[in-house]
């Protein structure tokens, strides 16, 4: 794992989550900024996934390998699924879905850090 990148992901995740939550509170359907936010999150998550899998294959691996890889793949899947699902709901609840996806990713990255460091 790369601690610096994980910190960046957590911050971006929290920002996207907070923004989506605010838009939901303001009764706004998802707009472009929320998709851009999820896309930025996804890029960082893909980089993290590649680096972490690379380290795993080269021998540096956590004790709970299956859990780690499971979480890692889930983090990469969540932003696109959240974007599709949230965008299809043209109400405040669409914004809530995007916020939820970003926050779940954030939680998973925290868990990833914990699993990696044992």
């Amino acid at each position: 794992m790369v601690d610096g990148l994980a910190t960046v992901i957590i911050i971006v995740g929290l920002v996207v989550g907070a923004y989506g939550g605010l838009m939901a509170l303001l009764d706004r359907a998802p707009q472009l900024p929320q998709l851009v936010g999820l896309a930025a999150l996804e890029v960082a998550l893909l980089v993290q996934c590649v680096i972490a899998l690379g380290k795993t294959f080269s021998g540096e691996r956590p004790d709970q390998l299956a859990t780690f890889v499971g979480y890692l793949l889930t983090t990469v899947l969540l932003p696109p699924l959240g974007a599709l699902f949230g965008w299809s709901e043209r109400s405040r609840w669409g914004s809530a879905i995007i916020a939820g996806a970003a926050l779940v990713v954030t939680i998973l990255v925290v868990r990833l850090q914990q699993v990696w460091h044992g």
Partner: protein
Amino acid sequence: MAEHKGHRHTGSGAGKVLIGVYALFALSAGARAGFQITQRFTEAPVAYSLSALAAAIYLVAAVALARGSAVARTVALVCCSVELAGVLVVGTVSYLLPRSFPDATVWSGYGAGYGFVPLVLPVIGLIWLHRTARSRPRETESTSDS
């Protein structure tokens, strides 16, 4: 989907958030149960079977809410009721007889390991089914959306 007739579909609006949460829990509980059952089933067969059952119920609930037909509503109602009973029974047993669950399930400790979402989710599901049902026959009530 059918909202133009004043019916409230279980799969739109807040219902879509609910479906997303159910799908997420089906995925996480299912993946975890699948791993536990294939790798070390004998350690805690009851706990792992329960996790698999919970995952299956979450999946069925998500699909039923997304479909929203009369039959699907009944299926969703059964799923939410079984879930609520499951989390209450397993949660209580896990406190009274901790040895009966050597490893945690989704429903242990009333879902404490998952931020109590497993306890809250079926309640929200039942409320949602009730709310969407109430505004079904009369078109005038369907405007009371928040």
